[in-house]
């Protein structure tokens, strides 16, 4: 919980993240704790990493830190639900992910935690896990993937959303080449642009870009179809891995487990693009309420990202552009 140690938060609201003790979630539900192992076990345990007061203090007065602090004030899980209920549901784990995210931030290049590559998961969710057939229209997939890429940058704490505009928080490189390119795009704009413009802009070629990244990662491979005319599709390499994002989400939502931040964003984008059906199909029980609760408790900027995605899909329908 690095955020608490960062100085200069006095302007932030006091009601903020009364970070609950880690155990809350398990206590309430008796289910196993959200496994930290899920969050890349090869890395050091959460506690030690971020308590480096010197670094924090040295940055305290830089412009960047101030922007970041301002952004952090958004980072409070807040929703129409009572804070008590959220705590009861084990959102402590949701906050905990901040540590992984911070670790990824500005550390060695080439190291991007798999959990943060939201677009890969969304891509897999948006295709049939066996045939690789698209579950969404081209346009909707583009919007969803564009949102996922912005989401990745937000999880990496490079950008945030303020008043529905994309704002840069940290211009240092991102450990993933594709996301870094998106960051370069954002940096290249003379002034902050609305999220909806970014969704449209990135949506034009997000599909190809993400697919190519996944080819490089060995998650999908190119294949040819000859149904009507020859065309190239991306087929999953490992069927289990392809089904995993949806199955994983469905399981966690069914068991009402605590869910890490990127997965909540993924759940939000799945709902926003209308892929819900596949999530529900994998779930053991009705998950809609829990899903909504989690999405509503996302930090402000991420919640806005999900809402903007839903709006972009809706507008594409209303503007005859689907």
């Amino acid at each position, binding site marked *: 919980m690095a955020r608490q140690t960062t100085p200069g938060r006095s302007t932030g609201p006091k009601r903020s993240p009364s970070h609950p003790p880690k155990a809350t979630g398990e206590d309430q539900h008796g289910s196993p704790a959200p496994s930290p192992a899920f969050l890349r076990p090869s890395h050091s345990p959460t506690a030690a990493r971020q308590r480096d007061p010197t670094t924090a203090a040295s940055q305290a007065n830089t412009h960047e830190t101030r922007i970041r602090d301002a952004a952090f004030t958004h980072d409070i899980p807040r929703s129409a639900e009572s804070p008590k209920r959220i705590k009861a549901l084990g959102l402590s784990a949701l906050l905990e992910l901040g540590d992984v995210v911070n670790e990824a931030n500005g550390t060695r290049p080439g190291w991007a935690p798999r959990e943060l590559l939201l677009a890969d998961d969304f891509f897999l969710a948006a295709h049939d896990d066996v045939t690789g057939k698209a579950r969404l229209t081209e346009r909707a997939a583009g919007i969803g993937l564009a949102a996922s890429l912005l989401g990745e940058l937000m999880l990496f704490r490079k950008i945030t959303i303020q008043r529905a505009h994309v704002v840069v928080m940290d211009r240092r490189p991102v450990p993933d080449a594709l996301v870094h390119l998106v960051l370069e795009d954002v940096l290249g704009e003379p002034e902050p*642009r609305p999220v909806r413009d970014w969704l449209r802009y990135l949506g034009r070629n997000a599909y190809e870009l993400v697919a190519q990244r996944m080819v490089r990662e060995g998650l999908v491979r190119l294949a040819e179809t000859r149904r009507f005319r020859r065309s190239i599709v991306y087929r999953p390499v490992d069927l289990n891995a392809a089904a995993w994002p949806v199955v994983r989400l469905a399981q966690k939502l069914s068991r009402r487990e605590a869910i890490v931040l990127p997965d909540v964003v993924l759940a939000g984008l799945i709902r926003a693009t209308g892929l819900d059906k596949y999530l529900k199909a994998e779930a053991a029980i009705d998950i809609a309420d829990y899903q909504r609760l989690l999405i509503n408790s996302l930090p*402000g900027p991420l919640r806005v990202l999900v809402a903007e995605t839903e709006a972009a899909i809706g507008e594409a*329908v209303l503007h005859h552009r689907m």
Partner: protein
Amino acid sequence: MSYPRTQSNLSLALAEDRLGIPSVLFFVMSAATPLTVVAGVVTTGFAVTGLIGIPLAFIIIGLVLGLFSVGYVAMARHVVNAGAFYAYISQGLSKPLGVGGSWVALLAYNALQVGLYGLIGAATQPLLLQWFDLDVKWWVIALVAWAIVAVLGLQQVDVNSKVLAVLLVTEVLVILVFSIADLGNPAGGTITFDTLAPGNLFTSGIGAVLALAVLGFVGFESSVVFSEEARDPRRTVPTATYLSVALIAGLYALGSWAMSVAVGPDQIVAQSGQQQSELPFNLAAQHIGTWIADVGHALLVTSILAAMISFHNTTARYMFALGRERVLPPALGRTSHRTGSPVVGSMIQTAVGLAVIVIYAIGGWNPVVNLFYWGGTAGGMGVLLLILITSVAVGVFFARNPSGETTWRRAVAPWLATVALAIVVFFGLRNFATLLGVPEDHPLRWGVPIVYLITVLLGIIWGLVLRSSRPEVYATIGLGARSVTVSASADTEVIAR
């Protein structure tokens, strides 16, 4: 800092796929489906009202709607979810009234759409008889059309604007060729101007003819849907709107006038009654040859189909937008993820269509007069009422937020249009029995206006209920697909402060 750039790549890239005037114009015009109006609306209108002022009425309504469009397109730049009348009403006038307006719109577009099932049955029947020697009941054809619309509605097929554009261009050509041939063969050897003479319009039934003319223009309002995606918001959409209104007015006035010239102004009512939608094709067959009549016939069928699909999708999208706002059940706001079509709204519209066809088939009523014409005129009246309320909303909106628009655009034109529209509505309601072709004591004479009134009132009540019971829904009425972002960011803004 490392990128001292003043030019925005994003703007440049997005500008590339923005729409120009031709795209918007084609979209609006193809939804207007001219042949359906000239062959269906005009002939039935002559026959039912017994009045011959229709050609002039198209010109007058064109002028009134052009005036209305000035404020309408100007306000489109300042509101969210432009393209739906109720969005204007909600954001300009009042949210509860907006809900009422949205329900009226649903009802009106619905009536327009299901009415077309009657026309397509009647228009295809003679074709099948002539070409294949098949005598098919109108409702069998209507059911086939219904199935096509149901499937295409779920596939969101209207995106295929190229097909529509080709159809539109051929329809316009056919109308022009028909009209030239009509004018070249005037009844009695001289070209008459009776149907364009004000004296024949300003009679006791003027309201009926004017309201009928409005029906021909329905669809022009959709141009503003593209105000956010137009290449130049200040020019593209306004120009496309004025052009489409002018083209529609000119084409329909010409087509209906030419027909009256060929038949003779004194005969047009009787002949329209006898031949119904066959009239323009029979004339063309006489003047040019049967082949062109056949081409026109086939185009009429595709034109009606295109109109049905267009209205079907309009209604489905209305329900979709209202579902997204949660003014209607949120399930309506879902899309088919595979095709992106507003699936629930589409299916409801399909169900309504089936019910109406079945009821008319069992009841044995006339598909052209009792289904197409009544549905069309009742729907057209609803749209006319919406245009009037929207015009008031435009005036009020700009009175509250001048938004940097000129006095002409924000005050003079909207209020002049409001007065003109109010006159049209007044006479339209007064002559509503003439419009429908029923006696004054017929239940539909007051039934239709009363149904609209009740719908508005129910909508207002529902809006007020939302205000007290679900303020978060009330706050986003009229915002369409964007309503979700308002609720999401409202929370964030509080934190940011």
